[in-house]
């Protein structure tokens, strides 16, 4: 397997936190829904989805932090983005099952609404993770610089199994991993964050050569 924890005597404990979700970025939701301009009916749909999910306003985060040299991650271009980090943070974050129930309900009745809820859930989760600070992760002196997930670029999806071994995702967070490496609840993200003292912001979409990607941020 690609990943392992080195240093037998060291223990990197995990922490479970409930996080409030930041305000909704409506433009981001529309972007995730594949929508550059929205007609009246689309905006009405978004507003109605926002009302329906008003009470789903927290995420659960499970993580452990370890010095950058203590974790061996599979080598590759994507992982090399974390190279100069002082600390690495393995994490799993989920919005919980309520979103899956809602999306399933509408996938039969209104695929448009299911799509909008999918997009909204994704935005909720990404906004929450984007807003994390070093202090949130127990490292107040450090800045969160990069975040990668198994399946991004050349970071192998199989690393999901390792993550599930390092973190008690199932017992603490209620996350499960299917044999084909799908996570349930579906509005969940696992991955590795790099923290360091000095911060260069993530280059984001501008670093990517897929200029015609429908999700590209302008």
């Amino acid at each position, binding site marked *: 397997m690609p990943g*392992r*924890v080195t240093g*037998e005597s*060291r*223990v*990197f*404990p*995990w*922490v*479970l936190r*409930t996080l409030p979700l930041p305000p909704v970025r409506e433009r981001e939701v*529309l972007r995730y*829904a*594949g*929508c*550059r*301009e*929205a*007609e*009246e*009916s*689309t905006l*009405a*749909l978004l507003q109605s989805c926002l009302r329906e999910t008003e009470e789903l306003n927290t995420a659960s985060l499970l993580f452990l932090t370890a010095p950058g040299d203590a974790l061996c991650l599979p080598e590759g271009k994507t992982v090399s983005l974390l190279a100069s980090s002082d600390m690495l943070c393995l994490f799993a974050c989920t919005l*919980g*099952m*309520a979103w*899956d*129930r809602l*999306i*399933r*309900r509408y*996938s*039969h*009745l*209104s*695929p*448009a609404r*299911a*799509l*909008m809820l*999918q997009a909204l859930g994704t935005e909720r989760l990404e906004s929450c993770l984007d807003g994390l600070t070093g202090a949130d992760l*127990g490292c107040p002196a450090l800045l969160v610089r990069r975040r990668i997930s198994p399946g991004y670029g050349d970071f192998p*999806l199989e690393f999901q199994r*390792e993550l599930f*071994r*390092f973190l008690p995702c*199932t*017992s603490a967070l*209620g996350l*499960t*991993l*299917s*044999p*084909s*490496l*799908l996570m*349930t*609840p579906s509005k969940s993200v696992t991955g590795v964050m790099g923290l360091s003292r000095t911060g260069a912001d993530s280059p984001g979409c501008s670093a990517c050569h897929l200029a015609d990607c429908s999700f590209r941020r302008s």
Partner: protein
Amino acid sequence: MQRLSLIQRISQGPVLLDGGMGSLLQKQGLKAGEMPETWNVKYPERITEVHRAYLEAGSRILLCNTFGAHPGHYAPRELRDVIRGGIACARRARREAGLEEDSFLALDMGPTGQLPEPFGTMKPEQIMDWYRASMEIALEEGVDLIFLETLNDLMETRCALLSARQMTDLPVFVSNAYGADGRLMTGATPEIMVDMLEQMGADAVGLNCSFGPDALQPVLDAYLSLAHVPVLFKPNAGLPALNERGETVYDLTPDLFARKVAAMVSRGVRLAGGCCGTTPEHIRALARYMPASVPVRDNPHMTRVSGNTRSVTFGAAPVLIGERINPTGKKQFREALLRHELNVVLREGIGQEEAGAQILDVNVGVPGIDEPRLLREAVEQLQTVTELPLQLDTLNPAAMEQALIACRGVPLLNSVNGSPESMAAIFPLMRRYGGIAIALTLDEKGIPGTASGRLEIARRILREAEKQGLGPHRFIFDPLAMALSTDTGAPGVTLETLSLLRRELGALTSLGISNVSFGLPERETVNLTFLTMALHSGLSAAILNPYARRLMHTFRAFLALKGMDSQCDAYIRCVQASPLQTDPLPSAPSSAPSQDPSAPSPLFRAVRQGFREEAARLAREALASRDGMSVMNQDLIPALNDAGDGFEKHTVFLPQLLMCAEAASAAFEEIRLSRAAAPAATHLPFVLATVRGDIHDIGKNMVRLMLESYGFPVIDLGRDVPPETVLQAMQDHNTPLCGLSALMTTTLPAMEETVELIHRCLPQSHVMVGGAVLNEVYARKIHADSYARDAMEAVRLAEKAEKEYLERKEGGHV
């Protein structure tokens, strides 16, 4: 000393469980990611040592180190070794401590780590196979009880307990892990879990893990006020944190932990121990503070049913059961069932829920149908769209059992009656799967003509049930409403029976209301008068049509008049949501499409902009003066094409396209309904599936919607579909058209296999593929006939493939 049975021992006073295992092994060098059970074979002396420390601290029930010993984690031989090894370690510790006579060994089983359908891919039977495999090994080896713990999903818990109950008469304890919201990860409440587990024969129920004692107190209190079997409690040693050396430490010292837990035990807990972060020191301290005896709680037995997350209690306000999922007298519904279109069931389910139903009756009995399979599928699918408890309505015991396997929570079984045959079929199902039965007051000789005759049958049912261990709270009696038109005395007997059942037996009652008006004009007037009379006589549940507005208003008005609706809120909401007088057609509703001079008709605009209700209404109006074909070709298809062209040119985006398709489908449905005999489909059927192993289906659902809006009859096989099923469906529906979707790289081999199978068996077929991980090149590589980038392209490609196929067929090449 005579060995006391475990259950006797617990009834004498609280018994100490043990504490954490994993955290102790980590201190001894178990690495992160290393499976703790492997140490049963690698370092048995260390495992034995942990057990012995717990025995010496006061534990009298040892959980073997088998928490994760599932076939999903271990190969068969390895599984046998770790389970046997784990039991041997505990047994040795017990012998060494000299406590063989006064301690018990438990096979400890945690979650499989896999989630059941519909959120995961595991079928209940697979989960049960896993648990049975491990239990079989342990039972051969010899344990005193089975301890199911840290389970955080209702269905998995249900499967684990079913497996244990099938395998053994030994005590089975069930402990769930609750989240911070006081529910299981998939939403079940303590109320739902306690009801279900007790009815299914758990010998003790409780909670463990998740948090420390303080945070779990509300859930524990709920258990103590609900349960009739012993309650167990095994919290963590508080919350985990980092210390300055970077170690996980829990914030409760052994002494503090023990004092908190002991205080809770004294309120009625019969089995106590610790979970993560607890050590023999915590258990030793707990032994010191543990009360010698605890009060015996006498909780009332409630008649309550539940779904996955919601429950309904009978006996206070009358309960409303929706009757519309039933093919009787509904031609279109029946035909849809015969075509295996479960969407009609789902729509009725959601519609009734929105109209105010609290429980849904589910009946799919059509002659010539595979009822066990269809009822089970209907139950599975309904539970994905509604949280309401279900009433399983079938005369077929095999269908009832299949539905019960798939059912989450405590359902109603409709029905049992006083005949020996019926009781022999239904009572064992109630014991195995739980559930409340609707008991009809009739028997093999028919329906008694008198109230006392019906009461006598009810008494007999209760007597027989008690012999099977089923208490009176497991039954709701139906005094049977019959047609007023054939016997004017019949409703009187029904109401008299209802009163007698209440007075003599203290029984709960339920009635199907609408039978009474059969054969009379203005049936609704008769129905609502009878409903009022029955409610006034103390009816506990009414089975009726929630779309019948006057009935619903009457029901709500009754609750308000009885003081069961504070501020009359529910009544006012109900009347406002479904006013009796429908307003004249609104000239400019707030959600109406804006004026667009270039658009040819209001219907075109409504569809193009995606206003679904508006489109349906306008289609209905248009159909008054035009035929369906012209509405379809002049309004719907042009609007769809307009949006589709825009989508391809990137001026219209996905949500708009989908809303346009939804509006077109709603209008299309009106056209279908308007014609007595629907014309033959304009297109060939299209078989659609997400491939085996993949449970992402939003893209597939979009393709279905778009195809349907263009008039393709779509056979949607759902998610995680094996290759053979796709092939079978194409053969059954005699179509060459099929679409496969996959989102994950890991499921692409399954897609390739499916394409290969279809091409081999149906060489003239056209297999279209799509999904996030695919592209043109890969689609060619796996020999797919076409690759659809998006839902719109899927329609274009389907039309093309269909045309080519028909041309070949005409040319005699097929």
